[in-house]
């Protein structure tokens, strides 16, 4: 079965760092695509490595990313917890292991580190990408297309949310979520990235995160943004919201000619004086050659592989991701000041 229909017959040799859920997801998709092969996985856990060695045939399992240098790799996926992205990506570049790098979002744990990685990437001619998967979702792509075509006129304001029930009912003192970078990086980063993609550069204008006994609630954020054209936006982010079985990102955008609502499932367009139009995933050709986690993950990896093969920039490169980290950093610093 031909999975990626590229004229290019080259097959990329790809490795993955980290074998958590995102590592396994990307490893699987890479291995299924016609133009890429999974050749190695790096994981720091001895036990995990032993199981992987016995469970996966023909794939090299290593304990240190430096050992990837033996494999003449065309691309590396970094899917470790966010706090380790900086050291792993730096090791890949500095060790001249590979010049084409995909990093699961966010690019790094803070803006300073992200900036250093971005600067480092400029010294290499390879392709880079950060895994902001909503850019490959059919609903958000359709919304982007409608906004670019001026369907609702000039956007004047928006409200965005990023909600999940992941930690609903879980002890608030649990440290485990910190591995995922906290709610802002884990979930909020997607909403911020989509906003930057839709509207261009944004500045944080207000932080309305509610306080509890004078302390910032670490699992709930509310803040405002604006741009130079007078656009104003509000965000609400939490992973303790009831009835969000899977994480959901959504936008409600007001423009001079109408209103657009979009989330992971559907898009609604309401133009002034006209009846509203709703499109679900079903209406938007939501197919992919292989379905794992959602068709958008395949499209995301396919985009990266094609970009590497054709040596063209990606939809969501380190520079775009750096802008996300800049906004997240401003919000994190405000939180720290309030604690």
């Amino acid at each position: 079965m031909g999975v990626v229909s590229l004229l290019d017959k080259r097959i990329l040799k790809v490795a993955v760092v980290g074998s958590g859920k995102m590592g396994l997801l990307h490893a699987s998709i890479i291995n299924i695509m016609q133009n890429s092969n999974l050749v190695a996985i790096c994981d720091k856990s001895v036990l995990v490595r032993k199981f992987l060695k016995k469970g996966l045939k023909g794939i090299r399992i290593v304990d240190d990313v430096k050992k990837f240098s033996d494999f003449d790799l065309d691309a590396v996926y970094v899917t470790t917890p966010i706090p380790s992205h900086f050291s792993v990506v730096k090791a890949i570049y500095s060790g001249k292991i590979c010049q084409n790098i995909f990093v699961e979002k966010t690019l790094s744990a803070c803006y300073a580190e992200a900036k250093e990685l971005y600067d480092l990437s400029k010294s290499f001619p390879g392709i880079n990408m950060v895994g902001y998967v909503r850019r490959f979702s059919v609903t958000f792509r359709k919304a982007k297309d409608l906004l670019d075509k001026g369907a609702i006129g000039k956007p004047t304001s928006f409200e965005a949310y990023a909600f999940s029930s992941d930690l609903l009912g879980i002890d608030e003192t649990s440290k485990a979520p910190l591995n995922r970078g906290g709610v802002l990086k884990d979930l909020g980063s997607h909403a911020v990235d989509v906003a930057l993609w839709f509207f261009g550069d944004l500045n944080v204008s207000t932080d309305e995160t509610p306080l509890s006994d004078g302390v910032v609630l670490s699992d709930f954020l509310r803040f405002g943004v604006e741009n130079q054209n007078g656009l104003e936006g509000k965000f609400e982010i939490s992973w303790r919201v009831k009835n969000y079985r899977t994480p959901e990102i959504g936008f409600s955008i007001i423009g001079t000619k109408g209103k657009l609502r979009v989330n992971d499932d559907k898009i609604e367009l309401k133009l002034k004086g006209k009846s509203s139009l709703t499109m679900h995933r079903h209406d938007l050709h939501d197919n992919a050659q292989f379905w794992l986690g959602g068709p958008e993950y395949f499209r995301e990896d396919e985009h990266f592989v094609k970009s590497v093969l054709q040596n063209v920039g990606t939809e969501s490169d380190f520079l775009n991701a750096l802008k996300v980290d800049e906004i997240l950093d401003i919000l994190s610093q405000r939180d720290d000041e309030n604690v």
Partner: protein
Amino acid sequence: MTKMSKQLQKRQVLLVGDNPFHGISHLSQERNRVRGSESTLPERAADLIITSFKNGANGFMFSVSETTLSILKGICGRRQNHPLELYAILPYAYEYVRLANQVGGIPGLAKMIIKRVVFSRNLRAFAKGLKGIASTDPKSLIESYLYYELSRINSSIDRSVSLRSVLLHQLVTDIALALDMEWLFKLHIDLMSKKAIIPGFNTGNYVYLVEKLRKWNIDLAKLVIAAPFNKAGFQMMPNKAECEQTLKDAKERNLIAISVLGAGYLDPLEAFAYLSTLPNLKGVAVGVSKDAHARQTFRLLAKKLTY
């Protein structure tokens, strides 16, 4: 052809699906929030299943979770003479992904599962698990896990109920498929066959799965596959036409169509009319969230899908 595969070829199954009981709508989460949580109550879910049985359903397809096991306990004593065949899907991936998020990833999750196996007091599961850890053998660990889940199901049903099939969840099937883990497919098939349970695979990649199983010389007549088939082509990868062609070319009648209403996008009449045109369909699974839905859905299905 073995007795089991002959039996499999003959049977027609109309299954109640469990998505509404877990609060799932693949059309939109918003729809589910509007729908409310009534159908997620085990007693209410059991009522809906009983109503479905009275109107033509003959089985229940479910992910193995505390919710569905409670539902099973609720329906076992109330089903009277209605046939009840169970099609269990495991693991309940959503629960495990959520747990992984809460306990710090896959290592934390693995520890939690091991604890559960130990405290289940299932000796076979415990022994296999111990062997799996001691020898870092993934096969033993998976066997241990499967025994553990089987013991959970069996402790929730009475002897008159038939656990017809155990299917590997879509996430596991499709990762194993993509990573060429032939051994995992064969392990599941061997283990279930030994227990006179039909092995099955839930997949989002029907075309690719069938192609691979044939390549690995796995007898498709001895298993069931649950995969999306609907008039809208929703979740049919890589596309509707290729899925239909693969089904048409199949020599075995082993497909249980899921997502047949396109997650509520399609009208039942047009959805079931489409299903009636599909060759080699073994059965369907459909979720219901209201009594009226249960009656209408299974009456219509029984009428449209008479082989």
